């Protein structure tokens, strides 16, 4: 039995199974399980051959098919006195296929509706705020209360202005990268050091800002090859060595 394989056609294992049953023109109430299982497995192998990732769900249904196939091989024993005995092992599968087809049909119906509804157009809701603008809120105050409030306001403003007249606002000087580079170089020179760890450098820095500036300064110095930086392991100690070309003259202001 030949059949065409279209890889991207199937939405799931049932979709594939229904397709196989229909193309082989089988009666859904009399599925030839052996033939269908073989086709189903061939299809999965084809998918694997084409390197398509086969969803585990396809395997689950394959297992179900094989189980039914093996049950069909066993003689069906009807216990004495029990009418009918065990049902057809295919019954449950048929029920599931019918259920699936029912919803596939519903999906097709919805698709048609969706298309039909494209002919019906609506106006998007417009900005209705011009119609619903809230009226201004009025303060419920008598003139004396209002005058008192205004007076208080003037008084406060006057006080603030008086203070401002006599004082200037000062910002704390923040460390700059240029300054920090100079200070690190000075440190190396003063103590005639060859090596220093990052921990030692930031030991006295109390703020995060200064620690970050120190780190960025080191990056800048490393870029200019003024220093060599080594870190043996992740999160390990960073060792800073002074490079051969060390010297203030090499550090350009950026």
């Amino acid at each position: 039995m030949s059949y065409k394989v279209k890889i991207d056609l199937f939405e799931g294992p049932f979709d594939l199974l229904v397709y196989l049953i229909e193309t082989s023109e089988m009666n859904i109430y009399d599925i030839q399980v052996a033939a269908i299982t073989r086709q189903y497995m061939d299809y999965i192998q084809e998918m694997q051959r084409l390197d398509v990732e086969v969803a585990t769900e396809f395997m689950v249904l394959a297992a179900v098919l094989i189980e039914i196939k093996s049950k069909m091989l066993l003689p069906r024993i009807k216990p004495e006195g029990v009418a009918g005995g065990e049902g057809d092992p295919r019954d449950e599968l048929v029920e599931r296929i019918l259920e699936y087809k029912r919803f596939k049909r519903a999906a097709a119906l919805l698709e048609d509706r969706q298309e039909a509804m494209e002919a019906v157009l609506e106006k998007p809701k417009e900005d209705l705020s011009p119609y619903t603008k809230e009226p201004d809120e009025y303060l419920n105050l008598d003139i004396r209360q209002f005058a008192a409030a205004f007076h208080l306001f003037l008084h406060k403003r006057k006080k603030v202005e008086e203070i401002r007249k006599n004082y200037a606002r000062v910002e704390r000087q923040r460390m700059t990268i240029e300054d920090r580079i100079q200070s690190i170089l000075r440190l190396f020179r003063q103590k005639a050091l060859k090596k220093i760890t990052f921990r030692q450098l930031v030991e006295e820095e109390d703020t995060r800002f200064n620690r970050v500036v120190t780190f960025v300064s080191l990056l800048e110095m490393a870029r200019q090859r003024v220093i060599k930086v080594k870190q043996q392991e992740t999160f390990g100690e960073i060792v800073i060595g002074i490079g051969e070309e060390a010297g203030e003259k090499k550090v350009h202001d950026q």
Partner: protein
Amino acid sequence: MTSKKTIKSAFESLMFVWGEPLDVKTAAELFNISNKEAYDYFAELKEEYDREGRGIRIREINKSFQLVTSSENVEYIERLCTPVREKRLSQQALEVLAIVAYRQPVTKGEIEAIRGIRCDRVLEGLMKRDLVQEAGRSSAIGRPILYGTTDAFLKHFGFQNLKELPDIEDIAGVMNLEEPEEGVETGQLTIEF
């Protein structure tokens, strides 16, 4: 007491200004009339528009009413301009949506059992498009989330309410769904039943 004629005329204006589906309850409150009365007025208006074959029609979505264009005129509208359209739903999305619509309230597990494949992402997409919403929790083990359809779903597919969903339970219809040229033996079916 405002006259019926005035109220109906007012409803027409309200729908025009509102654009979106106008809730019957909201409209009823404006005139201090019962929801039933308001609903009947809207339904009458809708009927009048249909009978006169107007270019504007009234559509009902779950006890809300909205002015829309007549589907017959879409061709002429397209001559004038290109209306912005929502992206159509994929086959997968339609399948999941169909199961939610017919089986609601339904858990993800139940949907997956019918389709035989996972549907997390499809369901997520449907929720994002506001076609599906959470509808409480099942009392089953693990209290899984239940899903149901929204009013936007009704609007998207042009249903007034869920009762309008076409019947899919008749099996003969199911059997005829697939390409008829493939010759599905309906004859054998009559033997079965």
